[in-house]
């Protein structure tokens, strides 16, 4: 089963390497990995897509906690959450199919962010399913290039886990 782990980590050199290396040496495969700043200085947030059964994910969480720079880990597949991926798709376009592509993009609530005589760049945000869906319908037009950010996730409502809490004081307290 696909799990989405969110880890708050110290924003220090080498932390990404420590986490990635952990997956390799404990023989887990990373499906997707995104890293970025949070609203708290000194704290980065990783969203890690990983496949495994509950036992494997439990082990992985314990190993992550063993890393000195990892502050908090949560498995968001266990709680209601919002998952988003962003994709940019460069698709072939010509005078005949131009309108058709624009209509399709509209249906998916995606946006065209670059136009040339023979191509569009389509930007789409959504969960995995939506992006796959758009890619399927764009494919026949001819995809020139595609890039995805990888998934980011957030629990709905006020997170029960204090370090992630929306008012943000707790992680900062842990840091201080």
């Amino acid at each position, binding site marked *: 089963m696909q799990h989405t782990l969110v880890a708050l*980590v*110290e924003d220090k*050199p*080498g932390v990404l*390497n*420590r986490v990635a*290396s952990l997956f390799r*040496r404990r023989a887990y495969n990373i499906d997707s990995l995104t890293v970025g700043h949070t609203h708290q200085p000194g704290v980065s947030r990783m969203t890690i897509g990983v496949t495994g059964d509950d*036992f494997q994910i*439990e*082990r992985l969480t*314990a*190993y992550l*906690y*063993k*890393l*000195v*720079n*990892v*502050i*908090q880990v949560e498995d968001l597949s266990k709680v209601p959450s919002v998952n988003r991926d962003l994709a940019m798709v460069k698709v072939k376009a010509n005078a005949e199919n131009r309108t058709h592509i624009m209509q399709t993009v509209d249906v998916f609530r995606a946006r065209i962010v670059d136009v040339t005589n023979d191509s569009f760049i389509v930007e789409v945000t959504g969960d995995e399913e939506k992006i796959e869906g758009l890619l399927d319908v764009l494919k026949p037009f001819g995809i020139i290039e595609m890039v995805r950010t990888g998934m980011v996730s957030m629990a709905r409502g006020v997170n029960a886990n204090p370090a992630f809490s929306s008012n943000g004081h707790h992680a900062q307290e*842990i*840091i*201080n």
Partner: protein
Amino acid sequence: MNYTGAQIIWECLLREGVDVVFGYPGGANLPLYDALLDYPIRHVLPRHEQGGAHMADGYARASGKVGVSMGTSGPGATNLVTGIATAMMDSIPVVFITGQVVSKFIGYDAFQETDVTGITLPITKHNYLVTDAHELNHVIREAFYIARTGRPGPVLVDISKDAQQASIPWQYDDSPIRLPGYRPGQKPPGEDIERALEMLHAAKRPVILAGHGVQQSGAMKELLQFAEITQTPVALTLLGIGCFPASHRLNLGMMGMHGEAWVNHAIQEADLLLAMGMRFDDRVTGNLKTYAPNAKKIHFEIDLSEVNKNVKVDLTLTGDLRLNLRQLLSHLQNAPHLVDAPHLEPQERLDWLARIDEHRGDSAVRDILNLPDSGHLYAAHVVNDLWRATQGNALVVTDVGQHQMWTAQYYHFNSPNMWLTSGGLGTMGFGLPAGIGAKIARPENEVWVIAGDGGFQMTMSELTTAAQEKVKVNVAIMNNGYLGMVRQWQEFFYQKRYSATPMLSPDFVKIAEACGLTGLRVTRRADVIPAVRQAQETEGTVVIDFRVEQEDAVYPMVPAGADLHEMIRRPKPSVLVETAEDEF
């Protein structure tokens, strides 16, 4: 006042209580070595950085303090790797300090540059790269703190040459350490203690599995009290040896691959295992599917990533073992002895101990100690004689292989921290350097290094270190002309096809003499104790070359991956004499 980075390093080491370091100088740590001359810290120069790493490890194991080992960049750092991994697998607190090339050259494949923080990432508890002298103070403090707290382990600090050279205004900063993601110990919730007691009361055939964690948390006294009050027998892991007195009625001895048969049978028949500071290593469990099938399991463990890793347990008591045992003991205070605690059902406990004793009787006839003296010199006899001659009071450091298992079986340790061995990594070459480190930590102790002819040759260059440092360790080489443990596996599992295990050794007596030390050779049982006495009375390190039986095997043996109760046993004497005659 201005200090150089190098001076700051030594200032910080002094404040961590460091009085000896084991290190090797080179281009990238020259500033550090230059500053060393102005500090009251003993420096021991090994003949190879691996030796220095094992010395710091042996020092840490023997002293309970954090060991310190140093090397230069590149090969200096990579030579430390085996020593770092050894310390990691056995949870030994050692701080490794390596020099790194000048920071502006990092990443340019400079002379003697290696990415040592990258290389050691998976074999350290944590590591640091410092390129700014301002960071040295808090990094070194964190390194020692992380190394010694929680489940201890090695920490490496890689310091660029320019950070050592930089001169900055500095005074010691001892403000609280801030490590938001580091949780060295978890406190046990009270209700788990009560559940543990309920499980203990319900058990008819409990066994305590005591590991290295008992000594690391200093819980020997608590373990003894707990075992006595609850009348629970104690089985030991390889690294747990010494944490419970060998001569105690409740001591079972070592468990696992080369554990005594009665110990493994007791574990397989148990209905409750109390695992204390041990991690269910594969050498301890054998086949996990059939391991202790009827037992409920309570795991006392400080490292949460060990819980349910190999063996699924029914209850976990996290945090410091000694604190947990104290809590359990305070609950048991109302019933200070078994006879006063009818709910512990003393008769059932006595039946259980009697049941284990039945297995002991069966083992005695196979015990090599009970074999008639056939003129062969058996390594197990040598170890047992050594135990008698030292009255069990020596600090014994082994290498890895058959001699290590025989020492675990036939040298009986009544007190903790007298037995040092590389368990998790199984590092050949560990013995001599670790013994030198141990002797430096505890000069008042008689130190014996027991090694095989193979492992000894891996690091025997450290004999010169012992000579230069005037460190007296006694070395007993169990010389059988083979890489004995590998040969044993080839004998059992590869139809005696001895591939690359016969080994030529130099004349160890002459090697010792060439280093300005004393060498002795023993070929007969009768000469064992006189040689030990002579070694004890001789000034300086003595090497004894014991020419032991060449094709002896360690029994019992649970083949890798087999069920714990499926042991290869030493043939009973009549059979053994026949095979011995056939083969020689």
